[in-house]
């Protein structure tokens, strides 16, 4: 799964640690999602969408699209 997490985070000048705190997860988890090593669960994807004020499909995109 591809995602725009890093771009969205940079737009808001948030560090990974700040985003992690907003989501209630570890920085390692934010980093793993950003780098595509880990695909979040649906609840965490919804939390990301809420934090960025976007729809889930505005953040995540299936590989190859």
């Amino acid at each position, binding site marked *: 799964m591809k995602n725009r997490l*890093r*771009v969205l*985070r*940079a*737009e*808001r*000048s948030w560090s*990974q640690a700040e985003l*992690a705190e907003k989501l*209630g*997860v*570890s*920085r*390692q*988890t934010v*980093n*793993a999602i*950003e*780098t595509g*090593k*880990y695909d*979040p*669960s649906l609840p*965490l994807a919804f939390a990301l969408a809420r934090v960025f004020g976007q729809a889930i499909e505005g953040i995540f995109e299936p590989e190859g699209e």
Partner: protein
Amino acid sequence: MVAQPASPAPRPSFREACVGSSTPAARRSSLQFSAWTLVWALSFLAATFLLKREVVAGALAWVTAAVPGLLGLVTVAAYRRFLRSLDELQRRIQLEGLALGFGAGILFSMCWRLFERAGAPQLDISDSALVMLGFWVLGQLLGYRRYA
């Protein structure tokens, strides 16, 4: 809002690459789990010493043997609390570590029986537990490195 160029992800520290980063709640429960593990290990060593040297006998020996078991139950409960305090990725890493530890421990205990029949030295059940523990730790290290 003007998009700033996306900065690359910061390199994880050595500690973070080995044991990951965690939330404050996970750090607290991790400390509690570590403390209970230490208490359990010390009680196990003390009970082994007392029983081996026959310092205690009769009913007191039974109580001495039971104490590490009861403290072990508290340690297991602390580990459960620790697991529940983790986020989903860290829980996955723990699960993968447990899978590796459990699998390696079972395989070792079953396969070693065959080696014993072939002439290898006889081991007891605590050796399998050590293999299980070692692979559990190894599994966690591999997981934290994989997702670092």
